[in-house]
């Protein structure tokens, strides 16, 4: 692999891992809200979660730019309060990837949470566990295959994220030029096919590695879940 390819690869993995690592807890929380609670505006929340899926990624990227850019309300606040700049940085790329992966994670986790037997949660409560503890010690472990599945799905999506990323954080070598962006760039010039093909292979390699790891984890989980 050329240094540029390695750079793009490492950046991609960093961005995707950050994206999933940061958004997973929120995804679990939102999935739990959707799976177990009824509250006004629930379907609005559900809709908002799905928006990044429905809107063309470029639109999502544009919305991110408008809100999280340095002139966006949130972006300005982040910058002034925490000195954090998202637009045109790899952190922004992670945010874009996280946003795009979010609905996928929420769906998978929600599905698993809904499948957890409420009877077991009841049993835990009669044993003195508070709802939070029940969630942490019973619900979440039992839903962990779904959490893992959602994380894998999200990771893959984050790895492949292109439209929102390039719109929000541009294509800055070493900062935001992830694998898909490098790949896209290559497809835009005649004769770029060979280089593009190499990047496709690298992407596939990463994906297979990630899937392999996740399958091993899933098997361990199964053993731990005793099924």
């Amino acid at each position: 692999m050329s240094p540029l390819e390695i750079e793009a690869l490492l950046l991609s993995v960093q961005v995707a891992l950050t994206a999933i690592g940061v958004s997973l807890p929120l995804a679990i929380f939102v999935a739990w809200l959707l799976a177990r609670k009824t509250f006004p505006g629930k379907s609005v929340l559900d809709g908002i979660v799905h928006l990044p899926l429905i809107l063309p990624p470029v639109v999502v990227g544009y919305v991110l730019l408008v809100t999280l850019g340095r002139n966006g309300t949130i972006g300005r606040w982040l910058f002034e309060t925490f000195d954090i700049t998202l637009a045109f940085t790899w952190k922004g790329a992670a945010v874009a990837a996280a946003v795009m992966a979010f609905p996928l994670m929420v769906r998978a986790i929600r599905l698993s949470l809904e499948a957890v037997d409420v009877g077991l949660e009841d049993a835990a409560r009669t044993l003195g566990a508070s709802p939070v503890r029940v969630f942490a010690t019973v619900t979440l472990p039992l839903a962990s295959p779904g959490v893992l599945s959602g994380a894998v799905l999200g990771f893959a999506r984050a790895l492949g994220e292109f439209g929102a990323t390039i719109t929000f954080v541009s294509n800055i070598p070493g900062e935001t030029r992830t694998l898909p962006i490098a790949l896209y760039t290559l497809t835009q010039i005649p004769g770029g096919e060979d280089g593009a093909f190499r990047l496709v292979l690298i992407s596939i390699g990463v994906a297979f590695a990630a899937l392999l790891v996740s399958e091993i984890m899933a098997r361990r989980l199964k053993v731990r879940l005793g099924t």
Partner: protein
Amino acid sequence: MSDVQSSALTDAPPVLDVDIRVQRGDAFTLHAKFTTDGGLTALFGRSGAGKTSIIDCLAGLIKPDHGHIRINGESLFDSSHGIHKAPEKRRVGYVFQDARLFPHLRVRANLIYGMRLLAESQRRHTLDEVADMLGIEKLLDRHPAALSGGETQRVAIGRALLASPNLLLMDEPLASLDNDRKAEIMPFIERLRDQSGVPIVFVSHALEEVVRLADDMVVLADGQTIAVGDVEDIMSRLDLRPHTGRFEAGAVIHVWVAGHDPLHMLTELGFGAGSIWVPKLEFDRGTPLRLRIRARDVSLALQRPTQSATLNTFEGNIVDIEHVAPDVSPHVDVLVNIGAPVIARITRRALEQLGLKSGMKVFVSVKTSAIDRHSLGLGRRRAG
């Protein structure tokens, strides 16, 4: 045990005071109303009568539509005050009918799930003690999926016990256990009942379990509370026979340990006007006990039997004669007062042959071997 009315006469509130209504689905309405003064209360009734529903209400897993549930006067639920305590705040130990072990935790982690949440000082049992008692030491590192039906149930019992609850709910905990295993676990439940002071509500189909273990009994049918009271009272009420079971009819009498015959491994139990010999019991002299004598184990004769292997023969007077079920049964139940009431079940043919009538003097025989550990319960505190 008493009605709500009569308990109002005493100063202290009843240990458990339940008066609830719940609608389940379209077809089933539950109305449960009983109080107990602690000890072990058995819920008894046919499949679908509403036993599990009551237990679920006590545990806080079902919210009743109306009424109240109080423990020592403290409301767990009260519809008129909008009180509905969360299950985890109630400190009930619940042995579920369907076990509900946590599939992702090994047996050990299942067992200590509730215990770990308690301060050291609040724990009344240790893991080893309970595992030993239930015979599950070898299973501690297994996952629940690798347990047999009975093993699963034993772990479920252990888990509830280790949570050191203030109210123990057991929904047919012994149904899937073999007799030997039952015989091992029942004394433990008795000890819990007598020594821990924890009130226990117990669902069972097996009358011998109820008689052996329960102080009070709530008889349910179709969601209605048919009868509430001392096991002795309920078991000797003839009108409840359709509910308590025809064949297993019998009387329960209060006795105390009067002496031992170590050579023959027998124990003498005293009652109103005599004594009865039973297989040796490990109780001190004077210990109050409840003894259930099944009607079918009692024989009657007009003369005192001689040279018979039956040790327990009493003289008494016939108080009442009741046809068991004239259309389908050849039996009559004869209530005889021998200083305590016992019921003898004999055939109508024998009744006619002996010409038995109310008030007649008869000799009553009870075989020692017909009295087993299942027939004995420790008398409750207030009876002692």
